[in-house]
């Protein structure tokens, strides 16, 4: 383990101790969906308006639930929500950023699921996760629905149309790109 990785690990461990174990609450469906959207905004970098605009939020939510189970999804969303609350009450966005990195993306339990949620939004594809009982060898990735494919956020993120859909019009490819690097 190099020093940087070790430091990150230590930081994450301390963070986990100080943020305390997350109490498992019994969230109702609408709360879960709300947390899911907030979580998706943080993960994808797209606004709630954009996410809802894809028309795929419910389908994605149910795809995740079906594939990892309600309990694990609740736990993940609750973890996120607690971080979100903490960040808001302290008025410190970095609490949320660090929490997402260390408590979620770097976590054994939630990491692969969070990554999958991002990929679902970006490329409308669900990839098998080994530790949730999904055998990645026998299971294959799938596109959740043909209609979801053109709604993938990847295409708006890089300022292009989804190949084979939402054509931008004759000659548009000659113009300056709409995206930039900051």
């Amino acid at each position, binding site marked *: 383990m190099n020093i940087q990785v070790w430091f990150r690990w230590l930081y994450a461990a301390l963070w986990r101790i100080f943020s305390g174990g997350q109490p498992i609450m019994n969230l109702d469906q609408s709360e879960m969906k709300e947390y899911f959207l907030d979580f998706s905004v*943080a*993960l*994808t*970098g797209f606004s709630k308006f954009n996410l809802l605009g894809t028309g795929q939020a419910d389908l994605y939510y149910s795809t995740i639930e079906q594939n990892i189970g309600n309990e694990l999804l609740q736990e993940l969303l609750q973890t996120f929500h607690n971080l979100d609350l903490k960040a808001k009450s302290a008025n410190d966005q970095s609490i949320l950023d660090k929490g*997402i*990195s260390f408590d979620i*993306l*770097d976590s054994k339990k939630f*990491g692969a699921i*969070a*990554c999958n949620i*991002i*990929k679902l939004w*970006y*490329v409308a*594809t669900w990839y098998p996760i080994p530790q949730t009982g999904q055998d990645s060898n026998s299971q*294959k*990735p*799938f*596109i959740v*629905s*043909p*209609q979801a*494919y*053109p709604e993938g956020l*990847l295409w708006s*993120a*890089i*300022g*292009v*149309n989804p*190949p*084979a*859909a939402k*054509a*931008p*019009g*004759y*000659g*548009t*490819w*000659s*113009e*300056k*790109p*709409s*995206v*930039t*690097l*900051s």
Partner: protein
Amino acid sequence: MSQSQTTLKSVDCETVSKTFYDVVIVGAGVAGSIVAKQLSEQGKTVLILEAGTGKSLTLEGFQSHVETFYGAVDKNPNAPYPLNPNALSPTDGANGYFEEKGPLPLSGSYTRVLGGTTMHWEGKTIRMLPEDFELRTRYGHGLDWPISYKDIQPYYRKAEYEIGVSGNTEEQKGLGVTFMDGYVLPMLELPPSYLDQKVSEKIHGTTVEIEGETIKLDLSTFPQGRNSIPNPDYKKYNDGDDFIPQGVGSVEPVEYGERCQGNANCVPICPVQAKYDARKTLNRIAFPERVHILPQAVAYKVEVDPANGRVTAIHYKRYQDKNSPEHTLGIAKGTLFVLATNAVENAKLMLASELPSTSGLMGCHLMDHPFLLAWALMPEVTGTMRGPLVTSGISTFRKGAFRKKQSAFAVDIHNDGWGWSGTGATDVVRDAVDNKHKYGAELRQELISKISRQLLLAFMCELPADPSNRVTIDAQYKDQLGNYRPVIHFDVADYCKNTFAYARKLSQTIFQRLGAEDHTKYDKRDQDGNLDPAYFEYQGESYWFRGGNHFSGTHVMGTTKNNSVVDQNLRSWDHENLYLVGAGSMPSIGSSNTTLTLAALSFKSSEQMLRDLKS
């Protein structure tokens, strides 16, 4: 094409068995469709036997292909077309249809559906150069044609009309193509992409050396079979009328004359049907009642009268369900017979019928355009992944005395990024998320940085005819209908490998000029540890190539029955009422994608068929 247009008639086996046709065509790709159109227009009755399903002829069927494509995780060239075990299509080695005997693979694909491979072609339509027809005489490689560029020139014009070509003749002239005085293509060239412009800005005017010759690195647009803006000067070649672009290949179109809209998905399916495919020819047949189509009919035998060599019938297997091998047998009869199933399938069908031809060259001289790829990240955001797959390239290496030592080539600038080299946009997302744990705004920036700056150069290299590169058959290798699968022997000659080596160096020069980060790497194995069959080492360097999908040469035309399979009109030397159309008849392919030339030859061949039917 209007709403009232009649569809071609799909018939059943019974009708076929009761009818004696003027012409029986096997295969509803671009070659077969042109022959059907030309002959029916002159009052001839035509039957087309088609191995694939006939779904794509209706708009509904076409849209189901688009939807299948949307739902496919692996968006390969055959992704819109459901696997058909009764008429398999090779897909870059994916379904093991070709039995590859090596040493290198004939990777690439074609599609056995109504409309054929144009259903997923890219649509470049470049004429061959006059010197390409004399490869052996001028440069000492491959074969000469029995005809010259001048002989085929009028048919190129017909093909350009039929396909609806957009392009710039002035630019093409500068690259060595000759045209009749004042001729223009039906539509104006497609505008170069922003990426093209950025590449051009930095390399324009640069010169490089090749075998002692100096060559300029200028960019030019490619003529393409996709709709742009009709060229007003084309009227002269269209009876004084403006050229009307063909919009929709399916009948009952929703829109008409659709221009290319930059869907960036030309391969494998253009959702607005701005790109030509053979259904546009089929749907434009003026006398549809003269043309019968029997889909789901796989020809497996050409029957010949041993007394005179004349073909008497085509035997086919008709299936109902593509997933079940159950089928009935049928026979189609007529005066003339035309095989238009593409270079690999035509040769396979003849060999399966035990008709290797007097020359013994059936299946030999298999050619393709191997592609060497090189990829880099541009120093600035170029908005990659917009527009038709390719709008411009470098075509200044298509000619020159260097062709004695190494093959000619043309360079594509890919607007669709690195997908072909193995890192598609989805792979970049997976890497950023899974390996780098990027999310939120940082993820968006990462994707712009790693995708929107992508530049892929594809060097399309000429591979001359070599009799040992060939299609054969073997009773061990059959499909579920009991039909042969093609057995392929294929290698890339040093003549072409020299060009790979040169192209790799040239790509480094270009990237340097552009200030682009070179990411090219030819790995022996893929991420899962599988050996890349197209990997090889040459002069101490590693390379792999990708297949060009321009399969050709397998029933080559020539001057006598001893040096070729067909004559200059694509008529079989051995069977006087049999024509083998398509790129299989081409003795060389230069650095031009093959379809425009094979379409031109189909027009030429149709004229001879009409003469035969008169006599």
